[in-house]
């Protein structure tokens, strides 16, 4: 049944189209502005996907950078070392190699998410946070020790396939996915799990499965963001995906108000731009950043950009 019922999909199509147009016009933009803009898009993907886990489902993961690393390395290997073997498969369409690499990177990250999530998700709160932090660090150490992907030095000369279309197209799909998952009777289950696991279970919700879905989907998009990041920066190394990177993403989610779509997107934009602006302070950058973080927690722990009530979806179910 077409018409207004599928309005959300129309919005998604329009966003994809806009990403294409932006790409078409991008040669008029300054390359610095362009790379900051893509950084913004990648951070929106990371923050929205973590929001699915930490915000909507109420599970506190501190390992998002680990899944990002899995996606980044997988995609970079596919477009780099394995490109000669893969290119014939795509025949004349070499441009399809990049989306293929991104999706495979996302899938491998999703598998990693499943492997990490399956044992850890019965833990709660701080304990879950620590275990995911631990897994994130283990992923980092493994990459540090695998010579095939450059060990501690990482991978270099990754082709710069990332552009406005891929970045913002993926951003639109991520935001749509998280939004669509939440806005359905099935999806209200994520929020129910976050509110009260015992009650959710008593209402017949398989809470473990819900948490796994959130974790795997979240890891999938983190992996894609990793692939985009690798093909934007042209080089990656394990220490770029450490605990501090995970914290950065967590801060975006908290700043935006956990479990809010728009707030988290705005926070991702704000923090990316702020980080760029702080660069001029050189060594003071991280000191200022950490002080802002503390001040924020002391004054607005519920998030900087929040509305009083989580918008009800009961008036309309689309």
């Amino acid at each position, binding site marked *: 049944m077409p018409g207004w019922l599928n309005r959300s999909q129309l919005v998604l199509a329009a966003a994809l189209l806009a990403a294409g147009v932006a790409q078409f016009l991008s040669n008029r933009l300054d390359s610095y502005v362009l790379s900051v803009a893509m950084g913004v898009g990648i951070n929106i993907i990371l923050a929205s996907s973590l929001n699915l886990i930490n915000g909507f489902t109420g599970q*506190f993961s501190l390992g998002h950078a680990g899944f990002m690393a899995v996606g980044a390395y997988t995609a970079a290997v596919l477009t780099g070392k394995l490109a000669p073997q893969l290119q014939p498969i795509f025949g004349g369409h070499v441009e399809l190699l990049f989306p293929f690499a991104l999706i495979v990177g996302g899938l491998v990250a999703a598998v990693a998410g499943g492997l990490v999530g399956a*044992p*850890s998700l019965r*833990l709660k*709160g*701080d*304990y879950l*946070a*620590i*275990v995911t932090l*631990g*897994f994130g*660090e*283990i992923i980092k*150490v*493994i990459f*540090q*020790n695998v010579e095939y992907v450059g060990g501690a030095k990482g991978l270099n000369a990754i082709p710069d396939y990332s552009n406005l279309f891929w970045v913002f197209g993926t951003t639109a799909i991520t935001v749509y996915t998280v939004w669509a998952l939440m806005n359905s009777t099935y999806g209200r289950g994520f929020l129910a799990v976050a509110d009260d696991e*015992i009650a959710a279970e008593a209402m017949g919700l398989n809470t473990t499965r819900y948490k796994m879905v959130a974790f795997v989907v979240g890891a999938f998009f983190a992996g894609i963001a990793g692939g985009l990041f690798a093909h934007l920066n042209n080089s990656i190394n394990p220490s770029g995906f450490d605990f*501090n990177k995970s*914290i950065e993403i*967590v*801060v975006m989610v*908290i700043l935006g108000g956990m479990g809010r779509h728009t707030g988290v997107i705005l926070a991702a934009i704000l923090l990316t731009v702020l980080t760029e602006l702080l660069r001029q302070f050189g*060594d*003071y950058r*991280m*000191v200022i*950043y*950490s*002080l802002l*973080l*503390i001040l924020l*927690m*002391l004054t607005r*722990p519920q998030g900087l950009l929040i509305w009083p009530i989580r918008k009800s979806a009961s008036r309309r179910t689309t």
Partner: protein
Amino acid sequence: MTELLQQVINGLSLGAIYALIALGYTMVYGVLRFINFAHSDVFMLGAFTAFYSSRALGRWGFAGGGFLGGLLVLVISMAACAVIGVLIERLAYRPLRKRSTLTVLITAIGVSLFLQNGGQMVFGVNPKAFPNIFPSQTFKLGGLVINSNQLVVLGVALALLSALHWIVQRTRIGTAMRAVSFNATAASLVGIDTNRIISFTFGLGSALAGAGGVLYGMNYPSIEPLMGNSPGLKAFIAAVLGGIGSLPGAALGGMVLGFVETGVSGTRWSTYRDAVAFAILIGILLFRPAGLLGRNRIEKV
């Protein structure tokens, strides 16, 4: 055989340092139920306090390198860290007393980032050679190599552990600490000033971390502002391993971690040292979340 003994000695002195730091994590968790991420940076500040104070003492003509001088440096570092710990709690954590754990956890991470980056600005990024604050000598027993610093580490750690045990078990304030960690609300109902106890706990834990920093500096002769990360993580794992909230557990966990780490370092898997530590952490959390010496809690429905 000699090699094994050598490993045991190295493991003991590393484990003792981990134990000292782990105690701070576990004590704070006991009274406030949150993980103080900034604890490892207090440890770093302990090492730097020792570095600067031993220099200053030397400049004032105080014979550096003597045993008493060393003890003085240790005491200064512990006192400075106690003050820093109390300040951190007062300024950053106390205003959040009624907020969610998540908020406090993020704040703690913020404090940690602040201390590390502030440290890099104040002390510089480059590693500094740690001075010989105690007279140092190397003994050879058969094939064994023992540095007198290792003995000092063990002696100091043992003395501090006993002192802590005495404070917690025998003094009024120690009893109050145990009461708060058992049930903070009930403790405040019977007239215990919980804020004062929490301050004291932070002071005590931070002093131990400070001592740990000094001892670490003595054994690993260079120090830098990010030096807290790795030992901090290991000590935290030690605290969880022993059963977070349990003091003997933290001491035991520290020792286990020390031995595991020296053990792994001797093999070709040495680059996986940190991964092994994390694997232990994950294993414990998944299979025995209460830790080796902790108690299970049943969730009330």
